[in-house]
């Protein structure tokens, strides 16, 4: 068992129920393959530094979980097929720090507007 972080970038023109279904889909994949979800963060709409496939913005979803290599294969296989996603990235960690959230302030600013 190892600790992992996984981030997804979903397309900009999706509705909120579609985004929630994407979030649920990958949660279920992790739990079905004997993984433990530690934390889920929604970073919200962020603008890219460069265009990715003619999109300027995207929704970011961030998972922190503990699992084996089985789940990583499942996640990779699913996210390549998925039409709603632009990119994805998994990073392996020995220790996870769940306290610091780097994208928290931007969400607060969006709510105020």
């Amino acid at each position, binding site marked *: 068992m190892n600790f992992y972080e996984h*981030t997804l*970038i979903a397309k900009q023109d999706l509705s909120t129920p579609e985004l929630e279904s994407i979030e649920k889909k990958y949660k279920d994949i992790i739990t079905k393959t004997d993984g433990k979800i530690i934390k889920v963060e929604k970073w919200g709409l*962020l603008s*890219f*530094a*460069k265009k*990715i496939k003619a999109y300027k913005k*995207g929704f*970011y979803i961030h998972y922190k979980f503990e699992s084996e290599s089985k789940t990583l294969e499942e996640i990779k296989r699913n996210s390549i097929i998925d039409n709603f996603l632009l*990119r994805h*990235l998994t*990073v392996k960690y020995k220790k996870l*720090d769940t306290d*610091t959230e*780097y*994208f928290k302030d931007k969400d607060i600013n969006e709510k105020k507007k």
Partner: protein
Amino acid sequence: MKRKNNKFNKRSENPLNKLSLFQKSDSMFSKKCPLSSKDAPIIDYKNIKLLKRYVSDTDKIMPSRITSVSQNKQRKLTSEIKKAKILGLI
């Protein structure tokens, strides 16, 4: 001798200029490594504020001879910057 001194003075007049790839400035960074002190910031691909300091205007990674980052930390920086570029954050 006088000409050389004039050139040196011009550089030191405006220390707030941004670091460029070809010009050394002693005022912005100290000679000690800024990332290996005791309460140094965490090098991570989500910590964009830190990473943007070590990237040039054209999104190149700054060499350690200008930023005076130690060799161990520079290796970490490059890997984290490349991860951030995949996600489109930098």
